[in-house]
């Protein structure tokens, strides 16, 4: 109900508004267009059949062709009041237009809305959280990476001096490192500051290693720096400590490795 108009609930109404002129109950001579299953029909009511409610509304099937249907309306409603004729044609136009639109839409893909169930949503969310906690992702990833390191999938990139190795071997490594120094990123500040920190973090063997290197060098500043650089480079070859996002330095080590093993391990027993 709008401010000025009522809507009529009668299904045979022509305009949809409740007026004296467009009420099917109030007028004894009336016509409407209604559509059923995509076909349009013209319904007519005349005063002669007012006594027979069953035969009251006469139905005429209209042509599928728009213009021909309009002509049919005209010839059926000849001698009828202008208002009804006009409104019938208008209604017919509107109906055909919306039928066309329906047909067009069904051809396109339509988004299917699947209703969510609130209880299930909540249950899934809760289970997800618990699974996340149970998963302990960081630990799992770290374990997996260490496993791969042990199984030598990385080849020779990282060499962690195990106690069994000779110190001489390490020294040799250091010397070969210095040759490839040019390739690595040089960062004086970092290596200097890192030097102290690394002494705390690294393994015992490295500690001894660095000590040895330090003591073996002369006390000239340059050489010390060089050795420090070498030491830090050699030890930091695989072990640049993670000091938070600000201090991350990526060392792109160019080393060729022959074998590439499949990195995916698929089964891990729960």
């Amino acid at each position, binding site marked *: 109900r709008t401010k000025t108009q009522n809507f009529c609930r009668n299904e045979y109404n022509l305009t949809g508004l409740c007026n004296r002129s467009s009420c099917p109950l109030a007028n004894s001579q009336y016509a409407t267009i209604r559509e059923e299953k995509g076909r349009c029909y013209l319904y007519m009511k005349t005063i002669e059949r007012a006594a027979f409610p069953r035969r009251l509304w006469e139905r005429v099937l209209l042509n599928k062709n728009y213009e021909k249907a309009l002509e049919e309306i005209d010839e059926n409603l000849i001698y009828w009041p202008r208002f009804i004729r006009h409104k019938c044609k208008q209604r017919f136009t509107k109906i055909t237009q919306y039928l066309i639109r329906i047909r067009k839409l069904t051809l396109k*893909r339509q*988004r299917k809305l699947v209703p969510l169930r609130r209880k*299930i949503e909540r249950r*899934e*969310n809760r*289970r*997800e959280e*618990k*699974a*996340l906690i*149970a*998963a302990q*992702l*960081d630990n*799992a*990833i*770290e374990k*997996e*990476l*260490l496993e*791969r*390191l042990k199984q030598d999938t*990385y*080849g020779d*990139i*990282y060499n*962690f001096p*195990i106690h069994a190795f000779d110190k001489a071997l390490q020294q040799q490594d250091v010397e070969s490192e210095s040759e490839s120094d040019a390739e690595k990123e040089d960062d004086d500040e970092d290596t200097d500051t890192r030097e102290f920190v690394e002494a705390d*973090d*690294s*393994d015992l063997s490295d500690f001894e290693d660095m000590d040895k290197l330090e003591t073996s060098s002369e006390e000239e500043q340059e050489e010390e720096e060089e050795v420090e650089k070498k030491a830090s480079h050699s030890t930091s070859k*695989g*072990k*640049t*400590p*993670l000091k*938070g*996002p600000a201090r*991350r330095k*990526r060392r*792109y*080590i*160019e*080393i060729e*490795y022959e074998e*590439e093993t*499949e*990195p*995916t*391990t*698929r*089964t*891990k*027993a*729960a």
Partner: protein
Amino acid sequence: AGDGSGLVGAAVDDGGPPAPERVLFPPTFSVSEIKNKQRRHFMFLRWKQQQRKEKLAAKKKRRKEREALGDKAPPKAVPKTIENQRVYDETTVDPNDEEVAFDEATDEFAPYFNRQTVPKILITTSDRPRGRTVRFCEQLSTVIPNSHVYYRRGLALKRIIPQCIARDFTDLIVINEDRKIPNGLVLSHLPDGPTAHFRMSSVRLRKEIKRTGKEPTEHVPEVILNNFTTRLGHSVGRMFASLFPHDPQFIGRQVATFHNQRDYIFFRFHRYIFKSEKKVGIQELGPRFTLKLRSLQKGTFDSKFGEYEWIHKRREMDTSRRKFHL
């Protein structure tokens, strides 16, 4: 309850005198019988403290006994977890199973695992993606090497699939969106491969992840697949593995992880560094999301005529809390 109320009567105002070492409750006394809420609460707290003390004492005693016994002590009791209690699934893959090995050698991923094909991936969304989804797609494409993002302007999936195959794509990822957040993922292996439909949840973009470093570089990351035990899990795991090129560049030190836990697959992308032989540090970069498998179809994406290998049926499959399918 003469004793009890007498004790409490003095305690109403200031929360009570300090609890005595051993509070003796008369045996027929129950905390819930006191009508006064404040007193009842106080007595309950006292009772709780006592319980805790007893428990601690029992634990200590047990530990002493254990130490006293030394080697002969009974083994430590393992707490029950859902993973421990998981209902045994018959389709669990035995690592030595020949049939499974044979299947894997002949299924749709064989050419990938034999290194005959290089993955090339097309990432797209549903119609009219909103900002979050678009950004997520971009980040995903940086994570997965050799991937391209294309906008879907109302194109039907059925039509674009033949075009993709013609242009040599191996995989198609469609990210479905709802109310401005991505919530579904369709992963389809293209030359006539299986299609998996996932529900995606808790998507975090790179800027929402704390302590993330620089962007993922162009190096090919490694792949970790955890906990894919059953046959179904196996095939899903292989699908994920086939997204990434087979030769990871260890220089890049990046790793993408798909971790399955209780049927939820968590995806993370990290950069790792080995601090020492036994310690590794990881830093998370790249987006993260969790997936839950909804259905697995045999052919490419086809909602009406496809042959479903597995659908999640809520009524049947969600009945037990200890039964998982992946």
